[in-house]
Protein backbone atom coordinates (compact mmCIF):
# COMPACT_ATOMS: atom_id res chain seq x y z
CA UNK A 1 0.00 0.00 0.00
CA UNK A 2 1.25 3.44 -0.79
CA UNK A 3 2.29 5.62 2.12
CA UNK A 4 -0.82 7.77 2.14
CA UNK A 5 -3.06 9.10 4.84
CA UNK A 6 -3.20 11.84 7.40
CA UNK A 7 -0.50 12.52 9.93
CA UNK A 8 -0.16 15.32 12.46
CA UNK A 9 2.94 15.58 14.59
CA UNK A 10 3.91 17.61 17.62
CA UNK A 11 5.28 21.09 17.22
CA UNK A 12 8.94 20.82 16.34
CA UNK A 13 8.77 17.18 15.30
CA UNK A 14 9.54 16.08 11.76
CA UNK A 15 6.59 14.71 9.84
CA UNK A 16 8.74 11.68 9.03
CA UNK A 17 9.42 10.89 12.67
CA UNK A 18 9.53 7.24 13.58
CA UNK A 19 8.83 7.95 17.25
CA UNK A 20 5.15 7.27 17.67
CA UNK A 21 5.07 9.45 20.74
CA UNK A 22 5.72 12.51 18.58
CA UNK A 23 2.69 11.78 16.44
CA UNK A 24 -0.53 13.45 17.53
CA UNK A 25 -2.64 11.62 15.02
CA UNK A 26 -1.94 9.31 12.17
CA UNK A 27 -4.25 7.32 9.98
CA UNK A 28 -1.72 4.52 10.43
CA UNK A 29 -2.76 4.16 14.05
CA UNK A 30 -6.28 3.77 15.34
CA UNK A 31 -7.47 5.53 18.44
CA UNK A 32 -10.07 4.42 20.93
CA UNK A 33 -13.43 5.84 19.98
CA UNK A 34 -15.50 7.26 22.79
CA UNK A 35 -18.94 5.77 23.27
CA UNK A 36 -20.23 6.97 26.62
CA UNK A 37 -19.31 8.25 30.04
CA UNK A 38 -21.36 6.74 32.83
CA UNK A 39 -21.72 6.84 36.58
CA UNK A 40 -23.36 4.31 38.86
CA UNK A 41 -23.53 3.69 42.58
CA UNK A 42 -24.20 0.77 44.84
CA UNK A 43 -25.12 0.89 48.50
CA UNK A 44 -23.47 -1.67 50.70
CA UNK A 45 -25.78 -2.66 53.52
CA UNK A 46 -24.10 -4.28 56.54
CA UNK A 47 -23.99 -8.00 55.83
CA UNK A 48 -23.73 -7.63 52.05
CA UNK A 49 -21.03 -9.77 50.44
CA UNK A 50 -21.52 -8.57 46.84
CA UNK A 51 -23.30 -5.58 45.34
CA UNK A 52 -23.15 -4.42 41.75
CA UNK A 53 -24.60 -2.02 39.20
CA UNK A 54 -24.96 -2.61 35.49
CA UNK A 55 -24.67 -0.07 32.72
CA UNK A 56 -26.21 -0.92 29.36
CA UNK A 57 -24.21 0.03 26.30
CA UNK A 58 -26.36 -1.27 23.41
CA UNK A 59 -23.30 -1.95 21.25
CA UNK A 60 -24.07 -5.61 20.65
CA UNK A 61 -20.48 -6.68 21.25
CA UNK A 62 -18.02 -6.57 24.13
CA UNK A 63 -16.44 -3.11 24.18
CA UNK A 64 -13.23 -1.81 25.68
CA UNK A 65 -13.82 0.23 28.79
CA UNK A 66 -12.19 1.82 31.80
CA UNK A 67 -13.86 1.60 35.18
CA UNK A 68 -13.03 3.72 38.19
CA UNK A 69 -14.20 3.27 41.76
CA UNK A 70 -14.63 5.77 44.55
CA UNK A 71 -15.06 4.45 48.06
CA UNK A 72 -15.16 6.20 51.42
CA UNK A 73 -15.58 9.49 49.60
CA UNK A 74 -12.00 9.63 48.45
CA UNK A 75 -10.45 9.25 45.05
CA UNK A 76 -11.48 7.30 42.05
CA UNK A 77 -9.18 4.35 41.56
CA UNK A 78 -8.82 2.18 38.53
CA UNK A 79 -6.61 -0.57 39.84
CA UNK A 80 -8.11 -3.66 41.36
CA UNK A 81 -6.54 -5.04 44.52
CA UNK A 82 -3.63 -7.41 44.79
CA UNK A 83 -4.66 -10.99 44.30
CA UNK A 84 -3.94 -11.78 47.93
CA UNK A 85 -3.96 -10.07 51.30
CA UNK A 86 -7.36 -8.49 50.91
CA UNK A 87 -10.86 -9.26 52.07
CA UNK A 88 -12.83 -6.96 49.79
CA UNK A 89 -12.36 -5.81 46.25
CA UNK A 90 -13.96 -3.95 43.36
CA UNK A 91 -14.46 -5.62 40.02
CA UNK A 92 -15.67 -4.67 36.58
CA UNK A 93 -16.45 -6.66 33.49
CA UNK A 94 -17.99 -6.08 30.10
CA UNK A 95 -20.36 -8.33 28.21
CA UNK A 96 -22.05 -7.77 24.89
CA UNK A 97 -24.85 -5.86 26.60
CA UNK A 98 -23.63 -4.32 29.87
CA UNK A 99 -20.73 -3.25 31.99
CA UNK A 100 -21.06 -4.64 35.49
CA UNK A 101 -19.25 -2.86 38.31
CA UNK A 102 -19.32 -4.37 41.72
CA UNK A 103 -17.81 -4.56 45.15
CA UNK A 104 -17.41 -7.93 46.78
CA UNK A 105 -16.04 -9.56 49.90
CA UNK A 106 -13.83 -12.59 49.56
CA UNK A 107 -14.04 -13.16 53.31
CA UNK A 108 -17.19 -12.44 55.28
CA UNK A 109 -19.30 -9.44 54.39
CA UNK A 110 -19.47 -5.70 54.78
CA UNK A 111 -19.47 -4.75 58.48
CA UNK A 112 -19.76 -8.34 59.57
CA UNK A 113 -17.64 -9.58 62.46
CA UNK A 114 -17.25 -13.31 63.07
CA UNK A 115 -15.44 -14.52 66.17
CA UNK A 116 -14.69 -17.95 67.54
CA UNK A 117 -13.65 -18.78 71.09
CA UNK A 118 -9.87 -18.76 71.18
CA UNK A 119 -9.17 -21.56 73.65
CA UNK A 120 -10.75 -24.28 75.73
CA UNK A 121 -11.13 -21.83 78.62
CA UNK A 122 -13.68 -19.95 76.51
CA UNK A 123 -15.96 -23.02 76.81
CA UNK A 124 -17.70 -24.06 79.99
CA UNK A 125 -19.75 -27.18 80.69
CA UNK A 126 -21.37 -26.63 84.07
CA UNK A 127 -22.54 -30.22 84.34
CA UNK A 128 -18.99 -31.37 85.07
CA UNK A 129 -17.45 -27.99 85.88
CA UNK A 130 -14.92 -28.26 83.08
CA UNK A 131 -13.57 -26.28 80.18
CA UNK A 132 -13.20 -27.40 76.60
CA UNK A 133 -16.82 -28.08 75.73
CA UNK A 134 -20.35 -26.87 76.16
CA UNK A 135 -23.30 -29.20 76.66
CA UNK A 136 -26.80 -27.89 77.22
CA UNK A 137 -30.22 -29.49 77.37
CA UNK A 138 -31.57 -32.53 79.18
CA UNK A 139 -28.84 -35.11 79.71
CA UNK A 140 -30.21 -38.36 81.14
CA UNK A 141 -32.89 -36.49 83.04
CA UNK A 142 -30.77 -33.63 84.34
CA UNK A 143 -30.79 -30.06 83.05
CA UNK A 144 -27.37 -29.03 81.80
CA UNK A 145 -26.09 -25.49 81.30
CA UNK A 146 -22.99 -23.95 79.82
CA UNK A 147 -21.24 -20.82 78.67
CA UNK A 148 -19.26 -19.47 75.73
CA UNK A 149 -16.82 -16.57 75.58
CA UNK A 150 -15.61 -14.63 72.54
CA UNK A 151 -12.47 -12.55 72.96
CA UNK A 152 -11.49 -9.56 70.81
CA UNK A 153 -14.97 -8.50 69.79
CA UNK A 154 -14.26 -5.55 67.52
CA UNK A 155 -17.49 -3.62 67.95
CA UNK A 156 -17.24 0.00 69.04
CA UNK A 157 -19.03 1.32 72.08
CA UNK A 158 -22.62 2.27 71.18
CA UNK A 159 -22.28 0.90 67.65
CA UNK A 160 -25.52 0.18 65.82
CA UNK A 161 -26.16 -3.56 65.92
CA UNK A 162 -28.02 -4.81 62.86
CA UNK A 163 -28.03 -8.45 63.88
CA UNK A 164 -26.16 -10.77 66.21
CA UNK A 165 -26.21 -14.53 66.32
CA UNK A 166 -24.52 -17.03 68.57
CA UNK A 167 -24.00 -19.95 66.20
CA UNK A 168 -23.77 -23.24 67.98
CA UNK A 169 -22.25 -26.24 66.26
CA UNK A 170 -23.83 -29.65 66.81
CA UNK A 171 -21.01 -32.14 67.30
CA UNK A 172 -22.97 -34.59 69.41
CA UNK A 173 -26.58 -34.69 70.48
CA UNK A 174 -28.89 -36.80 72.57
CA UNK A 175 -31.22 -39.49 71.27
CA UNK A 176 -34.36 -37.91 72.72
CA UNK A 177 -37.14 -36.44 70.63
CA UNK A 178 -38.70 -33.00 70.56
CA UNK A 179 -37.28 -29.52 70.59
CA UNK A 180 -34.47 -28.52 72.88
CA UNK A 181 -35.60 -25.62 75.08
CA UNK A 182 -32.99 -23.10 76.13
CA UNK A 183 -32.59 -19.57 77.50
CA UNK A 184 -29.56 -17.49 76.56
CA UNK A 185 -28.29 -14.44 78.44
CA UNK A 186 -25.32 -12.24 77.80
CA UNK A 187 -22.74 -11.79 80.54
CA UNK A 188 -23.34 -8.21 81.57
CA UNK A 189 -19.70 -7.20 81.99
CA UNK A 190 -17.36 -4.88 80.13
CA UNK A 191 -14.72 -7.48 79.41
CA UNK A 192 -15.67 -10.85 80.78
CA UNK A 193 -12.68 -12.95 81.79
CA UNK A 194 -11.91 -16.50 80.66
CA UNK A 195 -13.66 -19.32 82.43
CA UNK A 196 -11.07 -20.44 84.96
CA UNK A 197 -14.00 -21.19 87.26
CA UNK A 198 -17.74 -21.40 86.76
CA UNK A 199 -19.07 -18.29 84.99
CA UNK A 200 -22.69 -19.29 85.49
CA UNK A 201 -23.16 -16.85 88.35
CA UNK A 202 -21.83 -13.84 86.47
CA UNK A 203 -24.21 -10.89 85.96
CA UNK A 204 -26.82 -11.52 83.30
CA UNK A 205 -28.14 -9.11 80.74
CA UNK A 206 -31.76 -8.10 80.95
CA UNK A 207 -32.08 -9.29 77.39
CA UNK A 208 -32.69 -13.01 77.14
CA UNK A 209 -33.54 -15.28 74.26
CA UNK A 210 -35.97 -18.07 74.95
CA UNK A 211 -35.82 -20.56 72.14
CA UNK A 212 -37.13 -23.96 71.15
CA UNK A 213 -34.62 -25.57 68.84
CA UNK A 214 -35.31 -28.40 66.45
CA UNK A 215 -31.83 -29.85 66.56
CA UNK A 216 -30.20 -30.50 63.19
CA UNK A 217 -28.00 -33.53 62.55
CA UNK A 218 -24.48 -33.66 63.92
CA UNK A 219 -22.15 -31.61 61.73
CA UNK A 220 -24.66 -28.84 61.31
CA UNK A 221 -25.58 -26.00 63.60
CA UNK A 222 -28.20 -23.55 64.76
CA UNK A 223 -28.26 -19.88 65.61
CA UNK A 224 -29.40 -18.07 68.71
CA UNK A 225 -30.49 -14.48 68.17
CA UNK A 226 -28.51 -12.45 70.71
CA UNK A 227 -28.98 -8.98 69.25
CA UNK A 228 -30.48 -7.59 72.45
CA UNK A 229 -27.75 -9.08 74.61
CA UNK A 230 -25.02 -7.67 72.35
CA UNK A 231 -26.65 -4.24 72.34
CA UNK A 232 -26.85 -4.27 76.10
CA UNK A 233 -23.18 -5.18 76.49
CA UNK A 234 -21.77 -2.86 73.84
CA UNK A 235 -23.69 0.11 75.23
CA UNK A 236 -22.16 -0.34 78.66
CA UNK A 237 -20.11 2.72 79.53
CA UNK A 238 -17.02 0.58 79.97
CA UNK A 239 -17.32 -1.45 76.79
CA UNK A 240 -14.36 -0.99 74.44
CA UNK A 241 -13.81 -2.52 71.02
CA UNK A 242 -11.59 -5.55 71.41
CA UNK A 243 -13.06 -6.63 74.73
CA UNK A 244 -14.40 -10.11 75.38
CA UNK A 245 -18.08 -10.97 75.42
CA UNK A 246 -19.73 -14.02 76.98
CA UNK A 247 -23.05 -15.84 76.95
CA UNK A 248 -24.76 -18.13 79.41
CA UNK A 249 -26.98 -20.87 78.01
CA UNK A 250 -29.47 -22.59 80.32
CA UNK A 251 -31.69 -25.54 79.74
CA UNK A 252 -35.33 -24.47 79.92
CA UNK A 253 -37.19 -27.74 80.22
CA UNK A 254 -35.94 -29.81 77.32
CA UNK A 255 -37.41 -33.30 76.85
CA UNK A 256 -35.51 -36.29 78.16
CA UNK A 257 -32.15 -36.76 76.43
CA UNK A 258 -32.53 -33.77 74.14
CA UNK A 259 -29.16 -32.12 74.48
CA UNK A 260 -26.38 -30.81 72.28
CA UNK A 261 -22.60 -30.68 72.67
CA UNK A 262 -19.88 -28.68 70.96
CA UNK A 263 -16.21 -29.35 71.76
CA UNK A 264 -13.52 -26.72 71.36
CA UNK A 265 -11.04 -27.33 68.56
CA UNK A 266 -12.82 -30.20 66.85
CA UNK A 267 -15.13 -29.91 63.90
CA UNK A 268 -16.63 -26.46 63.56
CA UNK A 269 -16.44 -24.33 66.68
CA UNK A 270 -19.20 -22.02 67.83
CA UNK A 271 -19.05 -18.48 66.56
CA UNK A 272 -20.47 -15.08 67.32
CA UNK A 273 -21.54 -13.24 64.16
CA UNK A 274 -22.40 -9.57 64.52
CA UNK A 275 -23.52 -7.34 61.65
CA UNK A 276 -23.19 -3.70 62.58
CA UNK A 277 -22.93 -0.10 61.48
CA UNK A 278 -24.48 1.84 58.63
CA UNK A 279 -24.67 1.67 54.86
CA UNK A 280 -21.83 2.70 52.59
CA UNK A 281 -22.06 4.01 49.06
CA UNK A 282 -19.54 2.95 46.43
CA UNK A 283 -19.42 5.04 43.26
CA UNK A 284 -18.29 3.90 39.85
CA UNK A 285 -17.44 5.79 36.74
CA UNK A 286 -17.17 3.87 33.51
CA UNK A 287 -15.86 5.16 30.20
CA UNK A 288 -17.03 2.90 27.38
CA UNK A 289 -15.34 2.87 24.00
CA UNK A 290 -16.77 1.74 20.72
CA UNK A 291 -13.76 -0.48 20.14
CA UNK A 292 -14.59 -4.15 20.19
CA UNK A 293 -12.65 -6.70 22.21
CA UNK A 294 -14.95 -9.65 21.58
CA UNK A 295 -18.24 -10.57 19.99
Amino acid at each position, binding site marked *: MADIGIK*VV*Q*VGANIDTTD*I*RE*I*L*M*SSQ*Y*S*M*LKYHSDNTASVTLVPGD*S*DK*YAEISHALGY*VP*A*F*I*AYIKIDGVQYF*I*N*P*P*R*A*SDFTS*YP*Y*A*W*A*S*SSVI*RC*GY*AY*SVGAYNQMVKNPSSGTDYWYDGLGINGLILVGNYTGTAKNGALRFPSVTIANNETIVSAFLNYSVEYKGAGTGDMKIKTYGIDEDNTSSFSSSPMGRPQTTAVTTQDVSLPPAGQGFGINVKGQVEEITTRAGWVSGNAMGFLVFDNGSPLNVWVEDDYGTGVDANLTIVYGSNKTVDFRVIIFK*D*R*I*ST
Partner: protein
Amino acid sequence: MANYGVKVTIDNKDISSTEPRDYVFNSAYGSVKVAKEPANKTHETIDVSAGGTATATIAHGLSFVPLVMLFTELKPGSGHWYQGGINVADPTDISGAVTLDGTSDSLTYVDSTNVKITYSNPTGGALTVKYYYFIFGDNG
Protein backbone atom coordinates in the same frame (compact mmCIF):
# COMPACT_ATOMS: atom_id res chain seq x y z
CA MET B 1 3.53 30.57 18.39
CA ALA B 2 0.86 31.00 15.80
CA ASN B 3 -2.46 29.35 16.47
CA TYR B 4 -2.32 26.69 13.79
CA GLY B 5 -3.05 23.00 13.68
CA VAL B 6 -6.03 20.72 13.26
CA LYS B 7 -9.16 20.84 15.40
CA VAL B 8 -12.40 18.90 15.20
CA THR B 9 -15.13 19.52 17.74
CA ILE B 10 -18.05 17.36 18.74
CA ASP B 11 -21.53 18.35 17.55
CA ASN B 12 -22.73 21.78 18.67
CA LYS B 13 -19.40 22.86 20.14
CA ASP B 14 -17.66 25.95 18.92
CA ILE B 15 -14.30 25.56 17.24
CA SER B 16 -12.95 28.27 19.54
CA SER B 17 -13.79 26.25 22.65
CA THR B 18 -11.07 26.07 25.28
CA GLU B 19 -12.55 22.93 26.83
CA PRO B 20 -10.55 19.85 25.76
CA ARG B 21 -13.59 17.62 26.21
CA ASP B 22 -15.32 19.50 23.40
CA TYR B 23 -12.87 18.14 20.86
CA VAL B 24 -12.92 14.95 18.88
CA PHE B 25 -9.39 15.79 17.87
CA ASN B 26 -7.13 18.73 18.56
CA SER B 27 -3.51 18.86 17.54
CA ALA B 28 -2.86 20.97 20.60
CA TYR B 29 -3.38 17.88 22.70
CA GLY B 30 -1.76 14.51 22.49
CA SER B 31 -3.94 11.56 21.57
CA VAL B 32 -3.59 8.00 22.70
CA LYS B 33 -2.72 5.95 19.61
CA VAL B 34 -3.05 2.22 19.40
CA ALA B 35 0.38 0.92 18.39
CA LYS B 36 -0.53 -2.73 18.64
CA GLU B 37 -3.52 -4.94 19.29
CA PRO B 38 -4.27 -8.55 18.37
CA ALA B 39 -4.15 -9.40 14.68
CA ASN B 40 -7.37 -8.79 12.82
CA LYS B 41 -8.71 -7.22 16.00
CA THR B 42 -9.57 -10.69 17.24
CA HIS B 43 -8.83 -11.76 20.80
CA GLU B 44 -5.94 -14.09 21.49
CA THR B 45 -6.03 -17.27 23.57
CA ILE B 46 -3.68 -19.07 25.88
CA ASP B 47 -3.93 -22.56 27.35
CA VAL B 48 -3.43 -22.84 31.10
CA SER B 49 -3.02 -26.31 32.54
CA ALA B 50 -4.93 -27.48 35.59
CA GLY B 51 -3.29 -26.05 38.67
CA GLY B 52 -0.64 -24.41 36.54
CA THR B 53 0.33 -21.07 35.12
CA ALA B 54 0.93 -19.81 31.61
CA THR B 55 2.53 -16.61 30.41
CA ALA B 56 1.69 -14.69 27.25
CA THR B 57 4.58 -12.63 25.96
CA ILE B 58 3.79 -9.87 23.50
CA ALA B 59 6.69 -8.10 21.87
CA HIS B 60 5.49 -4.56 21.27
CA GLY B 61 8.36 -3.31 19.12
CA LEU B 62 8.53 0.05 20.85
CA SER B 63 11.65 1.46 22.43
CA PHE B 64 9.93 2.63 25.58
CA VAL B 65 7.56 1.30 28.23
CA PRO B 66 4.12 1.85 26.72
CA LEU B 67 0.70 2.37 28.17
CA VAL B 68 -1.30 -0.88 28.03
CA MET B 69 -4.93 -1.87 28.46
CA LEU B 70 -5.69 -5.52 29.06
CA PHE B 71 -8.98 -7.41 29.12
CA THR B 72 -9.47 -11.07 30.00
CA GLU B 73 -12.39 -13.42 30.03
CA LEU B 74 -11.32 -14.78 33.42
CA LYS B 75 -13.93 -17.53 33.41
CA PRO B 76 -13.83 -19.09 29.95
CA GLY B 77 -17.22 -19.10 28.29
CA SER B 78 -18.76 -16.59 30.69
CA GLY B 79 -18.72 -13.76 28.18
CA HIS B 80 -17.51 -11.50 30.99
CA TRP B 81 -14.40 -9.56 30.07
CA TYR B 82 -12.52 -8.13 33.01
CA GLN B 83 -10.43 -5.05 32.97
CA GLY B 84 -7.07 -5.67 34.54
CA GLY B 85 -4.32 -5.63 35.97
CA ILE B 86 -4.21 -8.17 38.70
CA ASN B 87 -7.81 -9.02 38.90
CA VAL B 88 -10.26 -11.07 40.85
CA ALA B 89 -13.55 -12.12 39.37
CA ASP B 90 -17.08 -11.29 40.32
CA PRO B 91 -18.02 -13.86 43.03
CA THR B 92 -20.39 -15.50 40.55
CA ASP B 93 -17.46 -16.10 38.19
CA ILE B 94 -14.79 -17.24 40.65
CA SER B 95 -15.54 -20.92 40.31
CA GLY B 96 -13.83 -22.05 37.13
CA ALA B 97 -11.93 -18.82 36.59
CA VAL B 98 -8.26 -18.07 36.19
CA THR B 99 -6.62 -15.19 37.99
CA LEU B 100 -3.81 -13.06 36.85
CA ASP B 101 -0.97 -14.51 38.82
CA GLY B 102 -1.08 -13.08 42.28
CA THR B 103 1.84 -14.93 43.80
CA SER B 104 4.13 -12.25 42.48
CA ASP B 105 3.25 -8.90 40.98
CA SER B 106 6.31 -9.19 38.74
CA LEU B 107 4.69 -11.91 36.64
CA THR B 108 2.38 -9.50 34.85
CA TYR B 109 4.09 -6.39 33.59
CA VAL B 110 5.23 -4.29 30.67
CA ASP B 111 8.78 -3.27 29.98
CA SER B 112 10.51 -1.63 27.04
CA THR B 113 10.41 -4.88 25.07
CA ASN B 114 7.41 -6.96 26.06
CA VAL B 115 4.07 -7.12 27.71
CA LYS B 116 3.97 -10.24 29.86
CA ILE B 117 0.76 -11.62 31.28
CA THR B 118 0.77 -14.62 33.59
CA TYR B 119 -2.45 -16.47 34.30
CA SER B 120 -2.94 -18.97 37.12
CA ASN B 121 -5.44 -21.76 36.87
CA PRO B 122 -6.56 -22.98 40.31
CA THR B 123 -9.19 -25.28 38.85
CA GLY B 124 -8.94 -29.01 38.29
CA GLY B 125 -9.13 -28.81 34.51
CA ALA B 126 -7.20 -27.15 31.72
CA LEU B 127 -8.60 -23.81 30.59
CA THR B 128 -8.27 -21.87 27.37
CA VAL B 129 -8.32 -18.21 28.28
CA LYS B 130 -9.21 -15.37 25.92
CA TYR B 131 -7.55 -12.00 26.27
CA TYR B 132 -7.33 -8.74 24.38
CA TYR B 133 -4.86 -5.91 24.70
CA PHE B 134 -4.25 -2.42 23.47
CA ILE B 135 -0.65 -1.28 23.49
CA PHE B 136 -0.53 2.47 23.05
CA GLY B 137 2.14 4.57 21.42
CA ASP B 138 2.55 6.61 24.55
CA ASN B 139 4.64 6.32 27.66
CA GLY B 140 3.24 4.06 30.33
